[in-house]
């Protein structure tokens, strides 16, 4: 097991190196003057020169890269022009908001998608099967920001069930004492049920949007994988041995079918992290996605770079965990290591 984890870690290292190099290049190998980008559109010539010296843009690229890596190691991601705060600090503060949203959305999505896919595969041609296929094809076609807006219109404007899309908490509430940064967990830890419900109400629509978004690929993959496994030789053997259909479906089919689904999760996370940005804009959610969008509008470059880097590093980490999970499920991978 340990050797498997070490192997996977080793594979992740080149990815991390690649990520750092690419984010560096994105800001240095730009058309035009990088100093001007970092100084901002309203900068004077002196300010641009200052930035140029500060970033060492006169130096050869290798030296610049070295300084960049050094800064990263110290946790220095530069400063935001609009707020003047260090980017790393902003990201640290805002990250839990995005994480809470994304994880809740994914959780709800899997809760619905996996059983739906399994039911569709075990009852081909039924209503459930057709429903699953429609969900899969239509769901993949829905732009996530569109879904979010429709949900706002229906549940907030028309029905009044959901609160206004103005962020994590209604104006009257203050956030719970920080433990994890997840309002749902922190409010429970603080024993504040009213706060818990308030947070949940605000989370409801954006999480639902993300859930709908990721429902389609997961349901589609679960259904396809389950169908393939149910048609396989070893399921035929299990049936021919008279095993009950519960045993066949759960112990024999499901576990094998989950393997490709777990590997798909990596792709789903990639989509989710991107969708996060769009959902945060629609719901004015104070996460790192909206941080990046605000920076974009203001042509504030350092936060953007910090954002891309953070997202990528998180994604590499997520993939690593998925790889390890995959190794846990599939002994063929585990034992060959």
């Amino acid at each position: 097991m340990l050797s498997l984890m070490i192997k996977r870690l080793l594979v992740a290292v080149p990815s991390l190196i690649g990520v750092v190099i690419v984010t560096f290049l994105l800001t240095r190998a730009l058309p035009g003057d990088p100093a001007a980008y970092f100084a901002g559109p309203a900068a004077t010539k002196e300010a641009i020169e200052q930035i140029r010296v500060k970033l060492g843009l006169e130096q050869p690229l290798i030296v610049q890269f070295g300084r960049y890596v050094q800064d990263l190691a110290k946790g220095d991601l530069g400063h935001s022009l609009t707020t003047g705060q260090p980017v790393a600090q902003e990201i640290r503060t805002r990250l839990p908001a995005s994480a809470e949203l994304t994880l809740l959305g994914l959780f709800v999505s899997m809760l619905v998608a996996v059983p739906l896919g399994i039911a569709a595969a075990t009852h081909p041609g039924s209503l459930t099967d057709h429903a699953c296929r429609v969900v899969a094809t239509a769901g993949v076609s829905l732009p996530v920001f569109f879904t979010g807006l429709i949900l706002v219109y229906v549940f907030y404007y028309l029905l009044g069930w959901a609160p206004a899309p103005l962020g994590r908490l209604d104006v009257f509430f203050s956030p719970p004492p920080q433990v994890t940064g997840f309002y749902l967990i922190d409010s429970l830890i603080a024993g504040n049920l009213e706060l818990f419900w308030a947070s949940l109400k605000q989370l409801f629509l954006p999480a639902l949007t993300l859930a709908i978004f990721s429902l389609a690929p997961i349901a589609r993959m679960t259904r396809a994988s389950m169908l393939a496994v149910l048609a396989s030789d070893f399921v035929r053997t299990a049936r021919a041995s008279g095993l009950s259909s519960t045993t066949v479906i759960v112990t024999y089919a499901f576990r094998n079918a989950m393997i490709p689904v777990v590997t798909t999760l990596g792709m789903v996370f990639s989509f989710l992290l991107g969708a996060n940005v769009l959902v945060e804009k629609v719901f004015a959610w104070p996460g790192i996605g909206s941080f990046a969008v605000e920076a974009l509008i203001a042509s504030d470059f350092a936060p953007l770079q910090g954002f891309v880097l953070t997202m990528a590093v998180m994604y590499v980490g997520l993939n690593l965990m998925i790889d390890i999970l995959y190794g846990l499920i599939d002994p063929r991978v585990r034992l060959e290591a």
Partner: protein
Amino acid sequence: MTAIPLLDVHDLTVEFATRRGVVRAVQRVNLSIARGETVGIVGESGSGKSVTSYAVMRILDRAGRIAEGSVRFSSIDVRQASEDEMRELRGREMSMIFQNPRAALNPIRKVGRQIEDVLLEHVKATRSDATEKAIDLLDQVRIARPRERYHAYPFELSGGMCQRVVIALALACQPQLLIADEPTTGLDVTTQKTVMELIVGLTHQRSMSTILITHDLGLAATYCDRVVVMEKGHVVETASARAIFTAPSHRYSRKLMRATPRPGVSLRELLPEGETPTPTSASVTPLNAMDRTPLLVVDKLIKEYPRKGLDGVGAMLGKLVRHGPAPEPDVFRAVDGISFSINRGESVGLVGESGCGKSTTSTMVMRLIDKTSGSIVFDGEDIGDIPARSFARLPLRKRIQMVFQDPTDSLNPRFTAARAIADPLLRLGGIPGRDAIRARCEELARQVDLPLDLLDRFPHQLSGGQKARVGIARAIALKPDLVILDEPTAALDVSVQAVVLNLLQELKDTLGMSYLFVSHDLNVVRLLCGRVIVMQAGRIVEHGPTERVLFAPEAQYTRDLLAAIPHPKFDDEPARMVAHS
């Protein structure tokens, strides 16, 4: 006393709903199995033999159903029984083993646990003694170190061992009937024998009835009491094994029997009675009349492959972390220093089981891959040193050609038959103009007995035998001196194989080619080749004239190979009794 049969199938008809309408895979089949008897169902592809057994167990595909007739197992009407009743029968009273044993096992579950599942399901064990019973079963199917192997996953076991596990699964609950659907296809010849003997041994020991489904009449005749022959969904003949093998009565059974390669028959005798191959001028060229200069001389040929593992940076890191020397050598020798020669006009067989290196050898002689060391001399020229990449453009390329094993994947699915045959002509033939090329294609089609109107068809519109002919036509298009045939008939039905083998003999004689015939099937090699080379683990263990090697083998391995071939013996043994009541 007529005992009530264990299984009674009466007028069984099975239908499948397909895109093109309803297809009757099995029609009015009658079959009865008494307790304790072993019955073989023999047929070629499309005969319905597997579908019949699936219907007996009621594990037909969703699209299939029993349309007419009845199936009675013991006193139960299988057709009317509920799914729950059937589930109780399956595994407990009747069980089945399939082809391709590794795929038949759950890849992520320990084999011991899989056996336990069956035991627990049919209440033949409790949680506390299930493990011991599973280990005991593994022992009964002669798996060494059963306690350890209990914890193994299928991918850690060989094909033969996987099949033993599948047998253990099938016999775990002591069923009355075992259905074995092509249990030895895909296994090595020596493994086939041990698996069959294990099956027959265990089933006789427990007085079980067995249905053996196979395409190999010889196999059925060796291990079964009675044989049922099926063709295109119908039963054409049912008789004792001896009767079927020595004096089949139905036309189709006779055709099958004749087409089965076995000792004592010649190539011509494989064909159905009344059919003679297209007349030829020469007969098989006797050894001593041939040209003395060897066409191909292979000397101390070696092919090494690096062992699988981390490459590049990973391997370096691995070496740094490891303490002491590497556990195994870094290379694997697929071919370990072999030498042989082929004379002009000669047909030489290259025989061995999977992994022996025969395919690697033939691919090197073909100059499709490069050797590691040794020499390959063709007609006096050293072709071994020419890199494979450059060989394609040399005129020498024309003189060595190949017929492939799988007719399906050796033809480009987007090329018509004519285009496939024309490919070598277009590149190396030096024939000007489309009409001339077309004319040559038609000439070749005639030579291989391929109807001309099939030339414009795509591979998926041709039968297996027709595809094989296209492959042969393509191989002889450039009039090569040496043709390498890599198991050319392994994927064909036995009756089609008979025709193709005769065709190959004709072509060899008419065109004066030499053959290197690579195969695992000694009986087939005996028909076509004057000399045979036996390989094992990358080395040649024996070689010489075919008759001598096959009748008086010197190497133990050759003896093992010969002994493994199913061998019905009716002259000395008394015929086995049908019912043990």
